[in-house]
């Protein structure tokens, strides 16, 4: 089922002695380590056992932990995601794989009306320590129903936490943090990142939840991204650096909670902001980021915040149309240049 993934630059390794592994391997390693560490961690999902997962994240885990802890489910997203909620209520720590975020719509009542509500609605009597792992992303020619980026829906919901790792190291440390957290956490993966490589510490690292990261420090303009777009932003920043333009990259890392302060502090310094996001423009993740900057850094902005997002269409299968509908490095570069020109930036 796994389709060829579009080329995305890999994480920088400069001056880092950690082993270089893929984003896929990093997720696998985090699952394996947490399952070894805590018996109550179980995996549920379609084809995660014998088939080793549609994107092979769970390869080998069935052999190591057996069919009770690596549980293949029927095609019944609402059923098995809801079952994970109930198991969590009794003290298990289920990690559910939803093959792609598009299929999470079948389970969204359980995720939003149940997982996100049970702790608060019942007055804090039972936490829901569960993780939902699911990849989003277009660009694989999977057509309209299999190429969506709907993370903004989940990021809008109190009671959920939504993490979006961009690098293999973050994938591992954020998945570890998600598994140990006592709330329902949606870990957003990305089809086009699974094969990307980067240095990942072998020892345990638990990422802080709710913090954005400055992945490139700069002074002239801020680019905000997450997941795949944070990787592209970093790459573009490096290209501009070569041309003497100092771009700061904010990797949101956590979509909920949202680290508004880190975003605004960066823009207070640079005075200019461009947001790169894979989802549709209107009411997308970037809308909140732009609104946040426009309010929080109002007095510091030299130009309007710009958003680079997907064209608002059901994504066509045809490569010729898919390519132009999705945001990419070129579009980001173009808009950054427009921003620099608009503010009379000297090169």
């Amino acid at each position, binding site marked *: 089922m796994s389709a060829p993934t579009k080329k995305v630059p890999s994480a920088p390794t400069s001056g880092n002695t950690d082993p270089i592994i893929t984003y896929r391997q990093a997720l696998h390693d985090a699952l394996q380590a947490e399952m070894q560490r805590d018996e*109550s961690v179980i995996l549920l999902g379609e084809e995660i056992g014998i088939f080793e997962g549609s994107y092979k994240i769970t390869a080998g885990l069935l052999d190591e932990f057996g069919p009770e802890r690596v549980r293949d489910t029927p095609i019944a997203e609402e059923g098995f995601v809801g*079952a994970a*909620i*109930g198991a969590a209520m*009794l003290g298990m720590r289920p990690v559910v794989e939803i093959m792609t975020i598009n299929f999470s719509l079948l389970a969204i009542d359980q995720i939003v009306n149940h997982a996100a509500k049970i702790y*608060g*609605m019942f007055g804090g009597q039972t936490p*829901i320590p569960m993780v939902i792992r699911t990849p989003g992303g277009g660009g694989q020619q999977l057509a309209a129903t299999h190429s969506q980026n709907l993370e903004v829906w989940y990021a809008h919901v109190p009671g959920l936490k939504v993490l979006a790792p961009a690098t293999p190291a973050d994938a591992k440390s954020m998945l570890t943090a998600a598994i140990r957290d006592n709330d329902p956490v949606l870990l957003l993966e990305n089809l086009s990142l699974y094969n990307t490589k980067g240095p990942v510490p072998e020892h345990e690292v638990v990422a802080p939840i709710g913090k954005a990261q400055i992945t490139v420090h700069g002074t002239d303009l801020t680019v905000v991204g997450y997941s795949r777009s944070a990787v592209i932003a970093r790459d573009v920043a490096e290209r501009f650096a070569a041309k003497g333009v100092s771009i700061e990259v904010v990797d949101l890392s956590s979509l909920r*909670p949202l680290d508004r302060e*880190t975003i605004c502090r960066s823009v207070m310094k640079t005075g200019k902001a461009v947001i790169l996001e894979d989802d549709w423009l209107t009411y997308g993740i970037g809308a909140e980021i732009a609104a946040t900057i426009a309010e929080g850094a109002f007095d510091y902005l030299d130009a309007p915040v710009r958003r680079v997002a997907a064209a608002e269409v059901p994504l066509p299968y045809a490569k010729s149309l898919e390519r132009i509908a999705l945001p990419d490095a070129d579009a980001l570069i173009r808009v950054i240049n427009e921003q620099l020109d608009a503010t009379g930036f000297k090169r």
Partner: protein
Amino acid sequence: MAGRTEGPARSRPVSGKPTKRSAASKQVRDGEGKVPAGTESTKATPAKGAKRDTTKPDADRDRLVGYFREMTLIREFELKAAEMYTRAKIGGYCHLNLGEESTVVGLMAALRPTDYIYTNYREHGYALARGMEPGRVMAELFGRSDGVSGGRGGSMHLFDAKRRFLGGYGIVGGQIPPATGAALALTYRGEPGPDSEAVVCQMGDGTTNIGAFHESLNLAAIWNLPIVYVVINNGLGMATTVEAAAGEPLLYKRGCSYRIKGVRVEGDDPSVVHEAAEEMLRRAREERKPGLLEIMTHRLRGHSVVDPARYRSREEAEKLRAEDPVPAYRHKLVADGVLTDEETAAIEAESIRIVDEAVAFADSSPEPPASDLFKYTYASPVANTSMLMPGDPILPAGWDKEVSR
């Protein structure tokens, strides 16, 4: 129309196997579900000078009296809830168990303290029968801090972790997958056996038509989960009949798609319900076989307290009144010489007292303080969690002056 009951100052579930309790409760871990206070089987002190058939063994008699006490307490509680709704003490949606008392009591009698139960939003009676204090249940309906869910859930969302009452749910069918997952969790706890734990998942007849029912029963079947799905068939969704909504209106047969055994019983005699539920639970415990139990009952009033049920004909309404299980059971017990009229009257009077106390308790309970608004959004607090009130700036004034936390 209302039954009346004698009983302790708090409602008590009747156990079919009181002897099993301590054994069963041994298994319990992490504080949850230690034997709830007041769950030992009750001994009613015979009212002085009442004539009675002394041939009935005492334990058996106590069981029947216990059922009646429960039923009348639920009846009184629900009548009072309806009244409190009209007095605006209760808001939102409010669904009553009027007419379902014998069903509720019989079913709950089959549960052990170590078992778990999930229900829909029509769950006041189940909560009372599980041993929750009527005052704390009423306080939840009032939205007060002493409510069983801290006032955050209301009528549809009662919860008591200690008593393993894992919630009333308002989304039709929403409770079924989590209940199934709770049963899954039990399979990691221990082996099947007479003392092992099980899950009961209650739902209404109309709920068998939703996808979650299908997906969940299938999971329970292929994973051999210790769970009993209980369909409370009161004949209606809101106004839609079972026949109009279900391709197979004999709902207990719907286990066929999963090879899950189905059984249907009449709900008006709590003993019958108790026995059927106990056998289903036995299969779940000892054989890890999920079951589907359909209980035929009546919804005496509208779907919720604001529904006048005009869609019912006068005849239907009268027929329903005639079928009211509470007075019927009272007459049966008196006719069988289990209780005298005086005793039933005393039991009924006691129920009224309990419910009046519950209202007084609820009324005196404070509303949750504004300062608690964000208290239960997350179990693990993390950085940057939004705690903004409507109209607040997204960042506190002068935030940009301080150094980053």
